[in-house]
């Protein structure tokens, strides 16, 4: 303990004694005066010349701030960020926000009052205050009243202060020394401390990270993400072949899927194209042709595939005379059933789409083999 005095405390037995001592000691102007009492003693603030507490103003400002922020937040969240209609009210209807505005206002105000008083105005917690280390503090928090003459900048005149206090009626006087100035921290200790904090955070953080990575969601948290229903293309543990998607029963006819009749191109030759040659049909035919046909037959239908890699078989040239002379029904049949290495495309193209492709093939043929009148 250093021998520099922080204060001289004089203990008084009654509040009256304290109050009457203050003007006397104050007149000596020995240093800053402070009183320590077990409970608030009225009149002390006047006697010591303390200023009024600014807390009320702070609380008012923060309370209003809380109210305003609560209102704006609710208004933004419900009315602007994600407008939701609830109970027929416009997203901007503000009336229902009032209760929360009030509560948040009180919350802000309370925290300002409580924490503002403790932390800002009274600068607590302060465990190292010299008075706390004094012998008298036990009496002060019990039933005695202390007047303290404290060093204010200049060195404290201990003797004078003690004398003054005694003369003012103090029943006991104690010199409170300034506690030794232990520097904040040695660099080493600081480093060690910081490192251990960092290490603890790192370990905890990594553990959490891996925990979440390996076990992201546990039941029952997960329980609507994975419902016990069978989605399209799901696997199955029930059907021995592992497919939850089943094949229709052989021979059954689904609505809208009358089996395709003709068994050979010859039988199909007579089928008329039921679609008109209008822009919609041709656009449909073109989009389907370019998706499914152009890969082999080429965008122009000339049998030059867009596939850069060699296909095992040579795709047909749709511009060839043979193909051009096919009736529509034959082309339709080939699209439906396939020919040689070409598979049928009924799985990908509906009947309408197939007929549209037939039209489009005709357009391609015409474009490449334009007759004179087309050029006019």
């Amino acid at each position, binding site marked *: 303990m250093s021998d520099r005095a922080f204060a001289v405390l004089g203990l008084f037995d009654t509040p009256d004694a304290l109050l009457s001592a203050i003007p006397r000691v104050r007149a000596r102007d020995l240093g800053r005066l402070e009183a320590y009492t077990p409970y608030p003693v009225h009149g002390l603030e006047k006697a010591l010349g303390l200023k009024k507490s600014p807390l009320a103003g702070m609380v008012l400002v923060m309370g209003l701030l809380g109210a305003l922020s609560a209102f704006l937040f609710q208004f933004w969240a419900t009315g602007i960020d994600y407008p*939701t*209609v*609830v*109970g*027929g*009210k*416009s997203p901007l*209807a503000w*009336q229902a926000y009032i209760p929360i505005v009030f509560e948040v206002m009180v919350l802000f105000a309370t925290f300002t009052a409580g924490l503002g008083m403790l932390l800002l105005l009274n600068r607590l917690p302060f465990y190292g205050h010299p008075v706390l280390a004094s012998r008298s503090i036990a009496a002060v928090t019990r039933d005695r009243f202390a007047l303290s003459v404290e060093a204010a900048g200049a060195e404290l005149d201990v003797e004078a202060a003690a004398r003054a206090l005694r003369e003012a009626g103090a029943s006991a006087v104690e010199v409170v020394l300034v506690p030794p100035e232990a520097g904040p921290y040695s660099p080493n200790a600081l480093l060690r401390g910081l490192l251990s904090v960092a290490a603890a955070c790192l370990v905890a953080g990594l553990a959490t990270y891996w925990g979440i*990575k*390996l*076990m*992201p*969601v*546990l*039941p*029952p948290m*997960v*329980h*609507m993400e994975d*419902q*016990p*229903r*069978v*989605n*399209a*293309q*799901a*696997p*199955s*543990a*029930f*059907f021995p072949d*592992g*497919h*939850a*998607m*089943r*094949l*229709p*029963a*052989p*021979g*059954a*006819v*689904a*609505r*809208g*899927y*009358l*089996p395709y*009749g003709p068994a050979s191109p010859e039988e199909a030759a007579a089928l008329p194209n039921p679609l008109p040659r209008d822009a919609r049909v041709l656009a449909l035919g073109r989009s389907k042709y370019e998706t499914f046909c152009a890969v082999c037959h080429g965008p122009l239908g000339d049998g030059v595939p867009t596939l850069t890699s060699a296909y095992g078989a040579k795709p047909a040239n749709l511009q060839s005379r043979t193909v051009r002379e096919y009736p529509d029904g034959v082309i339709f049949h080939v699209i439906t059933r396939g020919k040689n290495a070409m598979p049928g495309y*009924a*799985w990908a193209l509906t009947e309408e789409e197939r007929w549209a492709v037939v039209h489009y093939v005709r357009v391609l043929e015409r474009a490449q083999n334009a007759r004179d009148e087309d050029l006019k």
Partner: protein
Amino acid sequence: MADDTRPQPPVSGRRFWISREEGPGEPDARSAVWNEFPEGAADPPELPADALSRRRFLALLSASAALAAASACSAPDRGTIVPYTERPDEVVPGVPNFYASCFAEGRRAHPVLVRTREGRPIHVEGNDRYATAPGKAPYRAVADLLGLYDPDRLREPQNAGRAVSVPEAERLLAEKARKAREQGLPVLLFTDAVLSPTRARLLAELRKVLPGLEVVSYEPALGEGEERVLRSLFGEAVNLEPRPEKAKVILALESDLLSGEDPALVRAFAAGRRPEGRREPLARLYAAEGRFTLTGSRADARFGVRTGDLGAFALGLLRLLVGEHGVSLPPGAENLPWPERPLSSLLGAGAGEREAEALARDLAENRGAALVVAGSHLPAPVHAAAALLNLALGSLGKTLGVWPWPTAVAPSGRGEAEAALERAAEGRYGLVLFWGGNPAHAFPGHPAFGEPRREVFVRIGLHEDETAKVAALVLPEAHWLESWGDFVPRPGLKALRQPALRPLYPAARQGEDWLLGLLRALGGQGAEDYARFLKERWRREEWPPESPVPFERFWAAALHEGLVPGTPPPVSAPSAGALGPHLCGASTPKGLELVLHPSPALYDGRYANNGWLQEWPDPVTKATWDNPLLLAPADARRLGLKDGDRVRVSEGGRSLESAVLIQPGQREGVAALSLGYGRQALSVARGVGTNAFVLLGREGERVLRGVEVEKIPGRKPVPTTQTHHRMEGRDLVRSIPLKEWARGEGEKREGHPLVSLYPDQEFPESKWGMVIDLSACVGCSGCLLACQSENNVPVVGPEQVLKGREMHWIRVDRYYEGPEEAPRAVHSPMLCQHCDNAPCENVCPVNATNHSPDGLNQMAYNRCVGTRYCANNCPYKVRRFNFLEWTAHKREPETLAFNPEVTVRPRGVMEKCTFCVQRIEEAKVRARVEGRKVADGEVIPACAAACPAEAIVFGDLKDPESRVSRLARSGRAYKVLEELGVRPSVTYLAHLRNGPEDSE
């Protein structure tokens, strides 16, 4: 998750009755835990009731923790996608397909359309090409989808309790048949009604190789009176076809004409009850009955007549008609003797003599447009009297069609069936084949079923049921959705049944296939499988040879449509004189009369393992999961019985025990009990209700006289979905006399204008709404099942229903008005009203429910934390909360029944009717992709699609020309609890009463 594939009962099985005795108020710890942990549910069901020790609870907990860990470890894995190996042209994953098929039950067949996803049925609805009831299916057909995925289904043939392969089973069957043939012993085929011409042909083929084949075709649920009367009247087995659409006056003699079992009847009736745009007066329905049937509840005037007196009532009426209204008796019937009893002495509470006079007048004035129908359970005298009335009124051929029984195999009576079974018990048959039905349940305690696994007994069936237990050889049968067949649903109309999927279990084959195998093994001529057999018969017999269409195309088109029209063969003229003996059979009732009738839910018990149907509230009593003895209020008072008391019912040395439910409106002295309950096998069915077949005598008499009812100790509360039956004077379901409406009084609206502090909502594109016509709605509750199937609504079990936790998104409120003895009933479907100012939305703290721009009250289950505040604040109480886990433990095949387009809700979340938003969104997407607006009628919610009365209309209220908008402007329109200012989107059209007093 090791035992994923272990068979699980569809609604987690026995838990329903394990804690049955607890009753309400007890913590349902056990059933809850059973729900929670699939492992527990798979445990042996013999677990004693108090087996859930703390240790076991902890074990289950740790098991679930292990499960959690196991699934967590594989979390980065996102599962797999299994595409088709070869995708069929018609299947696009995620897009439904529809297959026309045909549902058959009892003596009825009905064309249906099966919706499949990726080759698996997920919903059943009516066939839209069926002109009599387009798009409407019987409600049990809709519900039987669950039967397809019933985990209790037989998967493999069993011989003497051991699984055997299909060829082995076929060999064993053939061996038995050969042995019988060699020994010269007859062979009995005990089956249910043979409605299919091709099935009858197969039996004929079989008879060629098995000359000793006897066929008993018995439907235990149905009475035989009608059958007998019609046979003597027409000289052959015939079917009647009531045509309510042609009738102006209908008299139902305890006939559940409007039960919805035949949606065509409901549709025709409802069509006659819509006043809008109708020139003729509304059809009038009279009912005379002892029970309180759904049809009776919808009658404009209802006579309380003891069931045993109905014949006398009909004859009294006839006398009135002949004596005072100049109606002449049909030829041959002029001198028939019949007992005379004054009409007035028969009438109980309810409609009285004045109404009887009015009825007679109405009938007389509407000769040729009047229809009398009698319930199928009634004895021959009633049917004879009804036939006489119909003949006298000239109904035949006008309001009542007659057509011959579609097949050569006529139905057998109970006496015949019992005799055959007795011979079987005595070992007189070399082979007994039980195919379909469940005789061991329908003939309880019969000596034929006394010993297990009889060597000569063979069972072809869906389940390992009571009958399978007495057969040595058990052959699994395919479900009807997996089968081929043909039926005659209406006179002349042929309907085809085609499978909507390949059999779930390859060893389960349709019964015909087993018989075809037998036929071939015995050296007969038959195709390889029944599909070919059917097609061959159609090629030979149904395809008009003169047709320009090749058979293959004819056949494909027939399968595509599901129907082929035709004309029925004629029926010989009736000879009324033949009714004589039947008329004399009528006798005065004595003591308490007990009426045994097929259960509206389980029919003859074949659906007892179907949780949807078990939990489907009876449209009148609202009882689920039980068949209580229904007593008239006066009888209950006399016997000192309350709802839920237990009684012993005995008659002629036979007795059973049952719970009691008091049925207002039931005639004093009449009790009723439904058949089909009290099954002793299968995980859901077992132990639910009591088997009333016990009381059926040899003659199959369903109206028993002098029945003793005695109170026994204990209580067994009946789980009902409605516990309060009066409207308490509130304006909830409006029912107004026709004359008031005609005078425009229905349009008077009471109450003050509703004001709001807030500006009205705007709906940019559309505003969905619904209109429910209470004049059309008969209360059949078919909508419940369609909704349940479409929307993955879980089944909760009887304890939970007792607690009021059932989950149906739509319910049908049924209120009684007037005196207990003869109340009037009103029915009103109640579902989420999608209020514009929805009170539920305001209170949800997490915004899980709010309003969509197209006017839906949307519910995001995945956002719901389950505060249940919304449900409290819902004035209609249509929100449903998952109090416990009812779905998560489900595995295939049960999960295959779920609609993949709808969330399967877990515990802890709120749910409710969404107006089938999946259908709305699908239509919207389709319209958007095609660059157009959603057309009127493009979106049809499941309830509306299923409603046989077409009482539910759905559409866009923003479009003033849509059907729903036009109906919503009707003078009958009102909204329930309109005064609350919540602005519901569902409009009701008031029910119009058309009693003799109600019209001018």
